[in-house]
């Protein structure tokens, strides 16, 4: 840790750390709205498309001047957005095709300008590469000030148009039909995306900038179902990833920062995918397991009940039961007083009887309902009832009983058991 400590004492360290976390958080906020409108790849097109602006800004300023490069990037970003818009309006090409076209053509122009910069003999010409993949550690406080001013402006504009953005993100059609100027809000969002891309060019680099617009929003969506929570979460996660990225950038200066930030975000995506409370795989697995347990034990007690119906006996041998129950099912049944277990012999208790009766009743009621109300053939109703018996609760059972007027037998002429 002693070595890490020396970076903390590096004069630029805290500047860069504070700067990159702030810039990334702002970019991620803008990305949340493009995510919700399913325009995520627009960010990728813009990020590639602004390269001529960055290289041109470098050539005009004759050095790595953050302000000129920022202005170049924003001007060219707006040009990128309008070109995509222009192509999809004037031709029958879809906007995704227009995006691929403009992205590659403009990036090609940018590559031409990059080679001009590299052969120009300008001082610091090799520094231009830091804009491609990001080099957080190479940022000076002056650069950071420039980017931060732009980021603050983005934040203010975002706050000002927040209600409008919310409307078009969630109910675009209604907004449109109420005479809301959707296209103007779209234009503002596009300019915000351009600015959000431009402020990240030196910390993340423009090639991977799209990830900062997309990934935090996607992660935030896994944890939140409200917009405000999503915004806070995506901003926070982007700040965290960017902060970790800048630490790496200081410890390994030869490495570009952007890929690390993207990789950290990817790791967060994988972690959230597993543990997030809303859509996490773990949560879904547990839910599935729980449902499976319920079905298994309900089927077990139903089978005992059927055997009792046939024989009138409440004592069984474990080997007499078709589909031998799992230990887990048996343990649950014993703990809940459904059965008494002694060695391999089972005794069905009063409580277990009631449970078996309930499930059998639900099954037969549903069969009768399908047959009577939906006029399904009697030999087609069983499979559906096998599923529904586990889902029919007290309320639905009451409704079925009322609808069928308290029937006595099911379509197969078996008794529908009532509580004695």
């Amino acid at each position: 840790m002693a070595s890490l400590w020396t970076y903390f004492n590096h004069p630029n360290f805290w500047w860069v750390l504070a700067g990159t976390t702030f810039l990334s958080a702002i970019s991620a906020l803008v990305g949340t709205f493009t995510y919700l409108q399913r325009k995520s790849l627009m960010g990728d097109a813009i990020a590639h498309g602004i390269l001529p602006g960055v290289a041109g800004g470098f050539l005009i300023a004759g050095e790595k001047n953050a302000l000129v490069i920022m202005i170049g990037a924003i001007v060219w970003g707006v040009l990128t957005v309008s070109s995509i818009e222009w192509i999809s309006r004037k031709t029958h090409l879809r906007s995704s095709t227009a995006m691929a076209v403009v992205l590659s053509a403009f990036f090609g122009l940018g590559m031409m300008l990059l080679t001009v910069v590299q052969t120009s003999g300008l001082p610091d010409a090799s520094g231009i590469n830091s804009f491609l993949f990001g080099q957080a550690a190479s940022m000076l406080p002056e650069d950071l000030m420039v980017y931060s001013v732009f980021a603050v402006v983005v934040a203010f504009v975002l706050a000002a148009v927040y209600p409008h953005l919310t409307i078009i993100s969630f109910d675009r059609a209604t907004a449109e039909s109420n005479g809301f100027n959707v296209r103007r809000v779209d234009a503002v969002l596009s300019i915000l995306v351009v600015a959000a891309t431009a402020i990240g060019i030196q910390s993340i680099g423009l090639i991977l900038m799209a990830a900062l617009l997309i990934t935090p929003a996607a992660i935030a969506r896994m944890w939140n179902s409200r917009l405000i929570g999503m915004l806070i979460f995506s901003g926070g996660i982007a700040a965290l990833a960017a902060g970790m990225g800048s630490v790496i950038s200081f410890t390994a200066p030869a490495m570009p920062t952007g890929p690390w930030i993207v990789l950290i975000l990817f790791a967060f995506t994988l972690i959230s995918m597993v543990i997030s409370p809303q859509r996490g795989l773990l949560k879904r697995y547990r839910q599935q397991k729980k449902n499976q347990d319920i079905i298994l034990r309900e089927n077990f007690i139903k089978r005992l009940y059927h055997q009792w119906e046939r024989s009138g006996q409440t004592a069984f041998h474990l080997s007499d039961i078709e589909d031998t129950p799992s230990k887990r099912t048996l343990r649950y049944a014993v703990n809940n007083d459904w059965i008494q277990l002694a060695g391999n012999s089972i005794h069905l208790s009063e409580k277990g009887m009631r449970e078996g009766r309930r499930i059998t009743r639900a099954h037969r009621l549903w069969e009768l309902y399908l047959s009577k109300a939906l006029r399904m053939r009697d030999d087609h109703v069983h499979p559906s009832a096998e599923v529904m018996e586990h889902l029919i609760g007290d309320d639905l059972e009451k409704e079925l009983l009322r609808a069928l007027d308290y029937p006595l037998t099911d379509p197969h002429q078996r008794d529908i058991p009532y509580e004695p």
Partner: protein
Amino acid sequence: MNTWVLINAVVIALSCSLAGAFLVLRHRAMLTDAISHAVLPGLVIAFLISGSRNTAAMLIGAFAFGFICIFLVEFFRRYVRITDDASIGITFTSLFAIGIILVSRYTDRIDLDQECVLHGEITYSALKRMALPGTNWHVPQTFVSGMAMLFIVSLLIAIGYRGLKITSFNPDYATSIGVSVTLWHYISGGIASMVTIVSFEAVGAILVIALMVIPAATAWLISKRLPAMLLNTTILSVTGSVFGYWVAIWLNVSIAGSIAFLLGIQLMVVILVKVVARRLPLQRATK
């Protein structure tokens, strides 16, 4: 000597643009963006394992990551319910990031660098030569592999022409007569991925996208029938490559960048001509 660079560029341009035509018709142009970024770690890992620029190893690596890319996109979409475009975006940026980290970490062991990933090495494609079997002719390796790819792509398109055509233009009709749209969806995607991967090394990530998408999109605007569109696609890809090459030599700039940009200029000219033509009184009178 430099003629070979131009010839290589044209050969690669031909196969890319032909394979791209069916992607553009299916509105899947951004797929090339995803694949051309996602295969990078495969190339680097293959390079590290085989210890050389072994074409076979790099192809296997690239294909493996092409599949990982498709799998991850599908996984995020289906099981994590991330929106379509976002799952594409997350996947290819992450894979590309892994590739870039590997490139910069092992930069001393690989003769790939961050820039060459973007620009490709078309300039050096004339240098590595091989003898044509049975003759004394020494031609660049890139030319041989490019011609092989062009042959395979043309053959696949010729064999699958009917299926590709019907599923591109009228998927509903295709389904109704029992042609599997999904199957041809994967075949067209597969051809495009193969071309992307083979061309990536020579022309870099960006020019692959430009070559696959722009000539086909341009040709679509000026052609009424598929054969004409395919012909126009190939012509436009050749003119774009030749002009782009000349401009690059003339201004001494990146060849890959210049070709990509010139392809874009061609498209812009076509759109402008169409827009102006629409406003001419002559056209209005004939309508």
